[in-house]
């Protein structure tokens, strides 16, 4: 699957990658290439959806370890 997601750094055009945990827990991101600091504002209702997905993914990982 192609993965072209992320934010293009406005200063150096580096593609900053995000995880759901980043969006949930962090308030700032720093460009790994040019160290530009960006304050992030994620709407609270979106955090609710992200929380559900993070939990679901955790459950899937737990199930993958399951063996009869």
């Amino acid at each position, binding site marked *: *699957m*192609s*993965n*072209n*997601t*992320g*934010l*293009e750094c*406005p*200063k150096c055009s580096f593609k900053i990658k*995000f*995880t*759901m945990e980043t*969006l949930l827990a962090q308030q700032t*991101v720093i460009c790994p290439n040019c160290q*530009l*600091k*960006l*304050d*992030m*504002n*994620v*709407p609270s209702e*979106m955090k609710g*959806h*992200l929380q559900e*997905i993070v939990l*679901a*993914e955790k459950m*899937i990982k737990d199930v993958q370890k399951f063996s009869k």
Partner: protein
Amino acid sequence: MNTSIYDDAATGLEKIFSAPLNAVIDADIRLANSIANFIESYGFENSDEGDVEKGNIETKEEDDAKGGKKLGPLRMISFTYNQDGKKVTIKIPALSLIQLPLLQIKKADFDMEVQLFTMAVDNQSKQNNNTEIDEKVPSLEEIAKSKQRKSKPPKVLLRGVMTASSSAGNEDKLKESMKANMKVKLEMGASDMPGGLINMLAVLNDVTEVQDQVGWKITNSPEQPEVVLSDLTADREKDGNTLYHFSVKITASLKDSSKTEIPNQLIVLVLNNQDIDGITFNYLPDKPYYQQYTNAWGETTFTVSGVISSQQFNTKEVRFKTYLEKNNKVASEGTIKFIGELTKSSKIN
């Protein structure tokens, strides 16, 4: 005929094999629906909110009848950073920020052990009843005997029951009648990300908004700068052709929605029709355009210059565009007009 008590529980093999496959396909469809719901709720603002206010609540069937539910505006995540002492806010669609949790069944292995019963039904009885297997099904011996008699053998159907796994530890414990005589392994594959989703992500990447640039405007002065050809003096002769140097000044002014001048912004001036017979523009070295920063008053003055070759020149106007380098939607267009006729001057340097 085999008279085991399992005969009654025996199922057609096709049903044994297709049931888990159908279950997997069913699960995959449910997953796809879940992903669609996620994209709708996570990526778009609730479109129903507006409808609730208007009292227009439609059922899912009504939505489907109209070609699907209307999606609200894209949910955006905003980022703020400091640029030259000024806060700049950019907004990016939430969907384009993270990899979508596209759960899909990539591979499903079914390892099942089946005790196989060979059953058969004669063609005549099947014609009478297409769904039920004749109760008087012959055994393998009877089929063999019918072959010896050269009579038409009855159609053979395979039926079986799933049995307990005969792994090393419990094989001895299994009764003979329960032992599997067939091991089946089925595999299912799945495709990659749907093309539609790939296209949607590509589109989303293009809708990033730079919030602080909303309302910014470039104004060119003059909008239609003129080059009076009769005022040009012949610069030099080359291969019997007279060359005229020309120059015109265009000032681009950048302001925000409150008419405040915006300094230190890179403005690009590009000519729409660059390859014009008879004109060679003096662009920046190695660049087919001009670019300069706005000064403290939000202005920058470009000097568009070049050389006109009299033999080939027959141009009346050249369109140009000025735009903000970091957001080409903040732009303005104009036209350089060439008026009058070239006149050969005696003053050739």
